[in-house]
């Protein structure tokens, strides 16, 4: 039988900020776009538990968050810092589990099926991990242990924050039955509403619906619902699984027309994306650029290069090129985003004559990355080149 641990960091971004700044501990902290006194236009990336009591949650417009709690501490997203903390925590997982699937910066599945005996049981492993995250990183995590990924994830969710929930095989149904259907995978708002219309609110009620009925109403998804209601899930923990793309966006405080400001923002975004890419020792074949105009018309274009890149300046060159093509008329810009995809391992491959010079630039990038890792994102930045 499989034993899966799901570790989910509690309000990860906000907790890191609170850890690093004692003044904002126990205060509502919102990490995300600049609220600009209520007229800010980006979104919330993370909210501390104190902020959540005001009804603030991630992906909410920052202006709404500001309305709900104007005295909250609003902080910008420091992705590089969170990446740094995340890689430390992920490294810890690898000490105990042979297979680790990092879902995002703050969440991972660990398959410990083979090694429980080595570490005297999955609970012991999970306890140790939780304690080490607290002692070494001064952060809390919620942990779920169960026979599969579905249940492990629901278990970690069950008692958040700082939770520890074990769902052994014999107590699966007992654990699931009272939960609302929205706690299951694949039950979003739409499905939830349709189930509610059928009088189905809890997993127990869902379990009473015949499989055929679910399939006729929800199609393929209906079959999964039937399985999930019974705690059945055989999806593997995939170690090799990694992000298919990396991207960063910026919403301007007011619609931007200045070409220099836009170019500089593209440069900073390219730098962020490049940092994350290199941090994972990856290269990218495709660079995407997202552009939203003042009227919310949104364009996304991609450029695929012959040979994979990882340097910020290569990402910048492609992104700024696409921008030039998309905005010849210099229309005011609301948002820009830079992303990379078709990721591959770095190293090897087609060599270049100018590699000496490239290696120098790659070395420079790695040095800048190192400085950022040590002293924070703002310790060093590229100057704009106009």
């Amino acid at each position, binding site marked *: 039988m499989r034993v899966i641990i799901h570790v989910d960091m509690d309000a990860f971004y906000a907790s890191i900020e609170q850890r690093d700044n004692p003044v904002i501990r126990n205060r509502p902290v919102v990490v995300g776009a600049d609220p600009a006194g209520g007229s800010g236009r980006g979104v919330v990336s993370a909210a501390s538990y104190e902020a959540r009591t005001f009804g603030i949650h991630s992906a909410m417009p920052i202006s709404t968050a500001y309305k709900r709690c104007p005295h909250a501490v609003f902080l910008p997203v420091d992705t590089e810092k969170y990446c740094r903390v995340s890689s430390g925590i992920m490294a810890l997982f690898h000490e105990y589990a042979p297979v680790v699937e990092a879902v995002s910066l703050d969440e991972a599945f660990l398959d410990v099926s083979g090694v429980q005996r080595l570490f005297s049981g999955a609970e012991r492993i999970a306890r140790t991990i939780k304690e080490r995250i607290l002692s070494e990183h001064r952060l809390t995590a919620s942990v779920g242990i169960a026979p599969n990924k579905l249940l492990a994830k629901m278990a970690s969710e069950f008692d958040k924050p700082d939770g520890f929930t074990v769902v052994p095989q014999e107590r699966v149904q007992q654990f699931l039955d009272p939960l609302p259907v929205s706690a299951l995978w694949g039950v979003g708002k739409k499905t939830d509403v349709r189930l509610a219309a059928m009088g189905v609110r809890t997993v127990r009620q869902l379990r009473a619906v015949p499989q055929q009925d679910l399939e006729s109403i929800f199609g393929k998804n209906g079959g999964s619902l039937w399985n999930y209601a019974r705690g059945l899930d055989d999806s593997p923990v995939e170690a090799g699984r990694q992000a298919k793309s990396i991207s960063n966006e910026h919403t301007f405080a007011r619609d931007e027309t200045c070409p220099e400001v836009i170019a500089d923002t593209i440069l900073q975004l390219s730098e962020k994306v490049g940092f994350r890419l290199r941090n994972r020792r990856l290269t990218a074949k495709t660079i995407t650029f997202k552009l939203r105009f003042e009227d919310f018309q949104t364009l996304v274009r991609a450029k695929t*290069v012959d*040979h994979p890149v990882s340097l910020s300046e290569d990402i910048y060159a492609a992104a700024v090129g696409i921008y030039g093509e998309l905005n010849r008329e210099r229309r005011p810009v609301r948002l820009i985003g830079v992303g990379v995809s078709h990721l591959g391992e770095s190293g090897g491959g087609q*060599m*270049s004559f100018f590699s000496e010079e490239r290696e120098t630039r790659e070395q420079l990038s790695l040095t800048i990355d190192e400085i950022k890792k040590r002293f924070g994102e703002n310790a060093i930045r590229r100057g704009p080149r106009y």
Partner: protein
Amino acid sequence: MKFSINQSTLLEALQNIGRVVPTRSTTPILENILFDLEDGGLKITGTDLEVSITTRVPVEQVDTPGSIALPARVMTEMIRSLPDISIQFELEENNKLKITTDKGRYHVSGLSKDNYPEQPQFSDAENFTVPNQLIARMLQKTIFAVSSEELRPALMGVFLQIMPDEFRMVATDGHRLSKIVNRGFKAEVSPLKMIIPPKAVQIALKNLEEEGDTELTIDQTGLQFNFGNTTLYTRLVEGEYPDYERVIPRDNDKTLTVDRELLISSVKRVSLFASALTHQIRLELSPNQLLVCSEDLEVGGEGRETLDVEYDGEPMEIGYNANYLLDILRHADTEQVVFKLKSPVRAALITPTAENENESFIMLIMPIKLG
């Protein structure tokens, strides 16, 4: 504006102009071509703002000079579909052009010349004349190595260098390089260097006659080829061309001599079994024998061929992109080619076995690191 013209004459001109006209542009006026009726004949112009072509064609009758910009696609399709007859054109009011043939009458809506981009003007230009054969050969031998990646804009063109005693062209995308030098020709012009975009090179190659000379006009930002009735203008690629001499190896001490055609067909066959993503093949060298092999780990395909060669160095295995290697082999003119090698991670220098008079021609290829 009123004139008659022969269908085949006009179609030939339109097809040549069509090489620069963008099919879809964010600046819709560029999808048009400009007709200028002058006393001397009809002048037709197309541009994408980087490259422009103007060609003069004889017309049968000229009545009141005038100008109009016309949709390139419609005009070309229309003229192409007609037999070789005389066609009458007449500009009517509101930029409407009437086309009359023996059987029909058609109206095309045009745009005023005022909307059409002005031709770039030269400042401090210099003129010089080059033999067609020379410039065509040099462009053909380099264009294949031009980079298509916008990451290094300066590499996106053929680098032309005119020095007091030589005329040279270089192209590289960082993975292969081609350099051709002619010492027999002296341009009557001060030393200069420029990067010519590949689109202009391709159009120039189509317009260069086999015999004769072509006059070139150049200034800081542009280059113009004056081919008799047709002129081709191109903006030059901006930026500093990298120091290519630095990457040409001087100490490659192992020599491989191989039959060019045999190697081309081997590489073609073997590369069918290589990864479609990397096109990677491996050359295994041992005394007087070359093994060309490939394997596609994902699909499970594999190919191997053995060739008799002249090779005096120690055994070595080198990976190459098959397409890059084929490009190079196709451009070496002689029956046999010579590879000068150093190691599996250093550039190979490839030359024909014999050189043309006053010419030196070398190509380089970088390996793929074998994992």
